[in-house]
């Protein structure tokens, strides 16, 4: 019953085609590009969760790196202290749990405020985690960070397999599965009654409270869900990167997450994913071509905010509307 409706809907058809293409990506891209693509996918997951908080609930956090780092460090620290449990089936839930705990703790403090206060608090708390990760070097490796080895996956061991081989093979499909799952879940959340409640809170906090929605509580829920998505992204990212450092919790890194979401457009579910992909390539291109890559990124961000405030997806949607309107006008006049 669901399937039939989906097949008729052009959106799901498009998703299906994209999924099909994604399945063949390892055969289409060389190793280095594939790894880059995987970075993009992990950030896509982060962006999906981040946008639940920003686009749908109306809260802008410049501190989401903290939850990304929580997930990444959960993996790395398990590798260091619990090597016997270093299996993907355990690592992913651990990362989700750890990032959930951190988001509950930080989120509880943050959601009591809005706007500027909220943003500053979220930012500052992530820097608290950064400082802890940085200073407690006995535990966390400090500025050197921690190594992330290849885990076992569902019973499969990868002894002696070099990382690029792992990443372009089994891992890619695991990552893809996680990505698709995250996307489907977020899709469900956003169109559910809960999603409507979040949007109501975003649009009119007072009215939402006065129709019986417990605003603070729901903001916290959104915060935690987005935190877990960031943690999942962080964990998956750590396998690709092979290494985690404290600056994953630095607010400038969080700023990149915000940048990606804006770049893609936070009015659409798919926006942040597009933004994540573009940003990953943009940053690499800038870093590869100039030592002043921050200048490039900063300048493009400013231009973007001024010219395309709705991001790439927003601009595309606007263009599409204009084309349709133009066509309709033509039909009428002819």
């Amino acid at each position: 019953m669901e399937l039939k409706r989906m097949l008729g809907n052009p959106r799901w058809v498009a998703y299906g085609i994209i999924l099909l293409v994604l399945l063949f990506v390892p055969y289409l891209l060389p190793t280095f590009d594939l790894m880059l693509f995987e970075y993009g996918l992990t950030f896509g997951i982060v962006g999906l969760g981040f946008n639940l908080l920003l686009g749908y609930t109306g809260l802008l956090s410049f501190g989401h790196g903290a939850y990304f780092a929580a997930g990444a460090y959960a993996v790395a620290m398990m590798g260091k202290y619990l090597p016997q449990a270093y299996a993907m089936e355990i690592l992913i839930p651990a990362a989700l749990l750890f990032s959930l705990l951190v988001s509950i703790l930080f989120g509880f403090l943050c959601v009591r405020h809005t706007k500027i206060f909220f943003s500053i608090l979220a930012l500052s708390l992530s820097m608290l985690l950064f400082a802890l990760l940085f200073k407690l070097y006995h535990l966390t490796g400090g500025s050197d960070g921690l190594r992330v080895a290849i885990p076992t996956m569902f019973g499969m061991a990868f002894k002696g397999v070099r990382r690029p081989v792992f990443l372009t093979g089994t891992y890619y499909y695991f990552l893809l599965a996680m990505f698709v799952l995250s996307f489907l879940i977020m899709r469900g959340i956003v169109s559910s009654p809960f999603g409507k409640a979040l949007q109501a809170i975003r649009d009119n906090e007072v009215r939402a409270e006065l129709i019986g929605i417990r605003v603070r509580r729901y903001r916290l829920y959104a915060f935690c869900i987005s935190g877990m998505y960031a943690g999942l992204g962080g964990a998956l990212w750590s396998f690709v990167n092979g290494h985690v450092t404290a600056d994953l919790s630095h607010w400038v890194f969080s700023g990149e997450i915000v940048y990606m979401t804006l770049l893609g457009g936070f009015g659409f579910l798919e926006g942040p994913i597009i933004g994540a992909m573009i940003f990953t390539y943009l940053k690499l291109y800038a870093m590869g071509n100039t030592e002043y890559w921050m200048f490039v990124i900063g300048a493009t961000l400013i231009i973007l905010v001024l010219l395309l405030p709705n991001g790439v997806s927003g601009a595309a949607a606007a263009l599409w509307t204009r084309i349709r309107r133009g066509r309709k006008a033509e039909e009428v006049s002819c």
Partner: protein
Amino acid sequence: MWVIYTLNGLYFAALLFLTSLGLNIILGVMGILNLAHGSFYAIGAFMGAWTIIQIVTKAPAPLLYVSLLSGFLLAGIVGWIMEKTLIRAMYKRTLEYQLLLTFGALLLLEDLIKMVWGGQALYASAPFDRLGKVEIMGSVYPAYFLLVIAITLCVGFLIWLFMGKTRLGIMLRAISLDREMATGLGLDISRLSTLAFVLGSGLAGLAGALVIPTTPALLGIGMEPLIFAFIVVVVGGLGSLKGALVGALLVGLTRSFGIAIFPEIELPLLFLIAGIILVAKPQGLFGR
């Protein structure tokens, strides 16, 4: 020992006060949180260091201290440019865009600093060395720190006078209290906003310049002060000048004593205190 810790705390609080005062003036008058505020601190630091290096062998001692003002000036000039270009574009936009634009400015400015002064550290400790040490209540203490505290007190007093007694200052306060009313009263919001931004950025630059004799100018020097300034603003209240003072003292002294007792605890302790204050008073100590 307590004397030293307290004085260290006051010294740190002084620099922090200048920085957060600047942040709060911009926040209060323009309603904008400038994420690039730390970059102005850095600009002040590099400019101050560079100036001192240029003149240290040729100039008489007092000039060295005056030259630190160059940091204040350059930060103000860059602030003026930024306000006229970027901030103008932000007025009609929502908070998200403001934060993103200032974030973009941060990235831009950090690399601009690198372009202008290179990636090396700039050492300019002459003003610090020249003043030597003094004895206070049985402990030996660098005189330069006392100079910084004194300068900050002066600046604080001047700003207080400016805000409270001059026409310009009162107009700025009016805008921060109620922007719409202020427009209705015929105040030139755009000129006054520029003034606020230049003043706020200049203060950050001054703080950066003042710290230079004690530490080299390094890339990213503005990052940590920015975070502390945020904490001060959160604890003291958005846009409150009194809050900046009390908050800076609180943060400065906590930090100083925290580091002395157990270095790792410094930041968590600070956050704990800030957290408690926020739970009791969600708007900060003097917030609206």
